[in-house]
Structure formats: structure tokens, C-alpha cells
């Protein structure tokens, strides 16, 4: 079942085209890897799905609805940067999410935050990059959303935190959840990706099922990544 449809989407800025006539379909119940080097359009696309940016042309639909109030209800978005107020304590952040999102599970959030080794009375401003990454993910995955959009969840994260983050994503995502993870670190994602989408200069250059690629090409997704971008 089609969850997300991107049709001929272009995004123009003054100096460049971030996305160029992009077409993509996301099906329900799978974990997608949105892969590509910096500047390939991953973050732009994700921000569009989250509703922060408008396409210059083309359309995006989630469950056949335009991006807006209703789609935001279905999408749980984790940006690369810090979107939480620096003055808030972690326990207040839980309340923050709980207040604004109906599908937020308080108990799950507390569990995840505990699992991540974070203390609830810490202020956001006092957290290291790794801790912040873990916090953001805990909050975003504690929503029962139809689509999780995670922008570079492993960026700037130490190896131990990365392991915890991967485990959390795996555990939180069951058959009914759909996840799009963007990354340029592919090794850690190897075993959890169902589908891979390779972006270059704002367009899809290759996409398909990871296991099928392994059968066809005898390559890991990491090797495939290097192959796709070797001339870039």
C-alpha cells in the first residue's frame, strides 16, 4: 500500500536546484534508506515531507492527502539539528511532545529515555551531541505515527550511542510502521534496511530492495553506495 508519493517534485533555490523532477513512492510497513552524499537532496526531501518546505513544482501526497495539518498528524519527523528549546528539561520535553501530539506514548518515551541512559532532570542545553541525538530519537519514536522520517540519526554520534540508536529503531518499528532513514553512513544500517533509495543531485539514481541487490550484485549496501557514487 502506497503511503507516500512524490511526483515530479522540484525545489529551486536562488543558487541551486535541491531537487529536480523527483519521483518516489514509499510503501507501508518497510524501512527505507535514503542514501547519498551531502547535497544530494536528502534533507530537502525530508523537510518537505515534514511540511517545513514547499516544492517549487510537483506534488507530494501522504495517504493521498496534501502536506498539511492532517499529514503532520501521520508523520513523526526528526531533524538533523536541535529543535528542542535549550531551556527545557528532558521531563518537560516529554510533556512538550505529549501536549502537541495525540499519538504520543508517555510511558514508551520514559522507557526509551531510560534505555538511552538519559536522566530526566537534565536540560537540553547541557546535553552533548550524542545525548541530544538519543533524546530526539526517543521522543520521535514514542509517537505512534504512520511514517517516521529520521534525518541522519547517526550523525556525530559515538559508536556506543549508535548501537543503541540502531537497536531502538529496530525495536520500535514493527510491520505496521514505515520508516525513512537518511544517512551517508551505510554500514550500520545494513541489516535493518528493507529498501534503499540512492539520491544524487536531487534525483533518484537507483532504488530497490536491499536483499535483492545483494542477490543480484553480490555486494553489501555499503559497497553498492561506493559503486553508485564512485564518479561523483
Amino acid at each position, binding site marked *: 500500500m502506497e503511503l507516500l508519493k512524490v511526483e515530479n517534485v522540484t525545489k529551486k533555490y536562488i543558487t541551486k536546484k535541491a531537487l529536480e523532477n523527483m519521483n518516489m513512492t514509499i510503501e507501508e510497513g518497510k524501512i527505507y534508506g535514503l542514501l547519498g552524499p551531502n547535497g544530494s537532496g536528502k534533507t530537502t526531501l525530508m523537510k518537505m515531507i515534514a511540511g517545513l518546505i514547499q516544492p517549487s513544482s510537483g506534488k507530494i501526497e501522504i495517504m493521498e492527502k496534501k502536506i498539511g495539518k492532517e499529514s503532520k498528524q501521520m508523520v513523526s519527523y526528526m531533524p538533523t539539528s536541535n529543535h528542542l528549546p535549550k531551556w527545557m528539561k528532558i521531563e518537560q520535553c516529554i510533556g512538550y511532545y505529549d501536549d502537541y501530539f495525540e499519538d504520543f506514548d508517555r510511558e514508551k518515551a520514559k522507557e526509551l529515555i531510560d534505555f538511552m541512559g538519559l536522566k530526566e532532570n537534565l536540560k537540553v542545553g547541557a546535553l552533548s551531541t550524542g545525548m541530544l541525538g538519543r533524546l530526539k530519537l526517543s521522543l520521535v519514536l514514542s509517537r505512534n505515527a504512520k511514517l517516521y522520517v529520521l534525518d541522519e540519526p547517526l550523525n556525530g554520534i559515538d559508536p556506543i550511542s549508535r548501537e543503541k540508536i540502531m537497536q531502538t529503531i529496530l525495536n520500535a*518499528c514493527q*510491520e505496521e510502521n514505515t520508516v525513512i532513514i537518511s544517512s551517508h553512513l551505510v554500514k550500520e544500517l545494513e541489516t*535493518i534496511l528493507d529498501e534503499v533509495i540512492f539520491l544524487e543531485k536531487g534525483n533518484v539514481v537507483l532504488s530497490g530492495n536491499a536483499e535483492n541487490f545483494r542477490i543480484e550484485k553480490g555486494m553489501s549496501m555499503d559497497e553498492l553506495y561506493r559503486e553508485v557514487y564512485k564518479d561523483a
Partner: protein
Amino acid sequence: MDFDARIPIYFQIIEKIKKEIILGKLQRGEKLPSVRSMASELKVNVNTMQRVYQELEREGITFTQRGTGSFVTEDNGMIQKIKDDMAQGLIKSFVEGMKELGFDREGIIENVNEYIEEA
């Protein structure tokens, strides 16, 4: 479990389960853990695990009882076949590997005997 990312993950899991059946770690007729719990334990995608179970069923290594779950086959013949197939696979790659090194039939058998005696 450490996976070789160049080979399909589901394939590697299937091999692992086959081994466990041969070695008796998974008994005949034993119930397999749920897709979710296995996926969680092995740290793989639920869909990948689903594919594993589907393949096992397709090959007749397991059977599903509606509502209860997946079970290892009770068929001794099937279990023997799995063992034989896996052995064949190993032998095939071994022999081909040795041939690539330039060994002929006698050479291969000689080496095998030597090794077994020393081990």
C-alpha cells in the same frame, strides 16, 4: 549474530536455522519463536525475518499452524535432506576451491585424509 552484508541476510539466517535443526538445537516439531522476537534477537528487520520464515515454509523445513505459529518439520527424511544438502554445499565449495589451487582428485582425497588424521 554477525552478518556478511554482501550475502542476503535472510539467506544467512536460514542457514543458521538449518544448522540448529541438524545439530538438534531445534528439535523436530519444536515451535519457532515469533517473527518479531527472532528479528529483535538477531537485530534484523522484521520483514527480513518474515522472508526467512516464508522461505523455510516453502522449502518444507517448517510448517505453520494457523494461530499457533511455525514449527520445525517432524519429517526425519527432510531433516536428513537438509543435512545432506548443507554437506553437499560445503563439499562443492571445498572441491572447487582445491581445484582452483591445482589439486587433482587424488591430491584432494590425500589432503583430506591427512587433515582428518591429524585433527
